[in-house]
């Protein structure tokens, strides 16, 4: 996985602004960033990714949640979680 892919949601970070807190060294993206610049919690990221699929494609809420959890299970920030 590229260094410029968010460790939390897998989004490619193509510009500095897309990194958490606008910090090019941050390994998480602006979507996965809490207001203080730190990475959001698992539950918050899960909710955000589910909402992304619901809003963009009208995916069923449970189906979106399952897919988001599946995606997150492969990502560095969450793969060792439970």
């Amino acid at each position, binding site marked *: 996985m590229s260094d410029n892919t968010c460790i939390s949601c897998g989004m490619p970070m193509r510009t500095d602004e897309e990194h958490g807190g606008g910090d090019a060294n941050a390994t998480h993206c602006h979507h996965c960033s809490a207001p203080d610049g730190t990475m959001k919690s698992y539950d918050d990221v899960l909710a955000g990714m589910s909402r992304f699929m619901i*809003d*963009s*494609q009208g995916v069923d809420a449970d189906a979106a949640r399952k897919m988001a959890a599946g995606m997150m299970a492969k990502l560095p920030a969450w793969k060792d979680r439970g």
Partner: protein
Amino acid sequence: MVTRTERKTRAEQKMETRQRLMDRAVRLFSRRGFARTTTAQIARAAGVSHGAVFMHFGSRDALVRAVAGEIGRAITDRLHELAADRASLRQVLRAHLRCIEEREDLYRNILTELPLLPNDARTAWVGIQSAISTHMAKVVRAEMRAGTLRKMPQALLFNTWIGLVHHYLANRELFAPGASVIARHGRTLTNHFLRLVRSQEEKNR
């Protein structure tokens, strides 16, 4: 002792072999589809041992996931650029179709074999479509604010477009036997879709 230069060369060789496996996998998946392509055929085409596929990708599923991811990245990178450049919806639709046309056989095989592809690849595909929808939404919102497009939910606008494009791709033998369905019908589909979503005022101009 391994020198720094030798280590770099080995890393480069590893990258080259990985890329060659990806290239051959893309070629075979495009030509023969996923179900009829084995890892042994990919290894043979790349001129490496069968084990090399698993050394570089871990599993066949991971290779399929990587191929789906690469095509998705190529499309979303292009649309991301256009959305950032404040392109028009027509420009975004045309770029989307051009990206598909450049790898139409592979795209069509992913589409028609999707229910049988590994879970990871299927989930990645949904993520890619969501990213495409989101890039489209950026230019759509600007055009809705300007009053040139009818107001409608992002998901319905995207599903209307992708439903149309995917129907033509999945049934290529009906719409463009032995040829590129995007090359033959892309312009018609783009014009039709824009007529559907344009506001009445814009149509009257």
